[in-house]
């Protein structure tokens, strides 16, 4: 029951999961990585392994403080970033609330 709504053009229908990623090309996306990282950036490339290239990236890294062992976050910026696909858990296109 692919959604037949407004998108009549063939390439805007999400027929397989990676189409969702394709529809986010040149959009800002949220990517959650295994372990302790999240990144937000403009998506320019992906492949079936989920390798990604993003620009104007902001990476959020969760680190544990040595003394009080509390989780803190640090922000890192990167102008243009290749992300290896095997660590990707989730990609959320811009409609994210």
């Amino acid at each position, binding site marked *: 029951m692919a959604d037949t709504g407004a998108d009549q053009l063939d390439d805007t229908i999400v027929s397989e999961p990676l189409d969702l990623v394709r529809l986010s090309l040149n959009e800002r996306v949220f990517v959650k990585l*295994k372990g302790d990282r999240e990144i937000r950036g403009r998506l320019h490339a992906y492949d079936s392994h989920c390798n990604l290239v993003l620009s104007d990236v902001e990476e959020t890294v*969760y680190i544990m403080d040595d003394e009080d062992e509390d989780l803190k976050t640090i922000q890192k910026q990167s102008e243009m970033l290749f992300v290896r696909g095997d660590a990707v858990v989730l990609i959320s296109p811009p409609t994210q609330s």
Partner: protein
Amino acid sequence: MENTDPSLLPSIIFTTAAQLVDCVDKKLLVVLRDGRKLIGILRSFDQYANLVLQETIERIIVESMYSDIQRGVYIVRGENVVLVGEIVSFTLFFGSVAFDLLLTYLNLKDPEKENSIPLREVSLDEIYAAQQDEIDNRRRRELTKNSKLIDIGFSIDTQQEDMY
């Protein structure tokens, strides 16, 4: 499903083997996924980056201490290799301290590279003890951190984490 897509043939001029070919008979540092550091002469390799190393020493480094063990000939299985580094050859005869002095003498010293702490050679027993402490508290910290990360919705890689 095996397909040798003709359009691929010309483009694959860069292969794993081609990248290692100019390291043969050179002194290399090989870092394994379990954190081991091997220094030896590369005698051969194949398309899976399996390596044959001769006159190899295993160097255990903990903070600024290190210790070497003579190991001989290795056949290393490629998938366990993290990185292969070509060593500036005279390091091994001089060890890191002298290497630093030598660089300053030959004024090859990289100005903005603050002088990296020269490594101090220690006995094997000392390094093993220091290594065990390092592993133990790394594991303890990781356990607490992972449980906190899962609490806030992160997915932890449950496979045995690499220690390199």
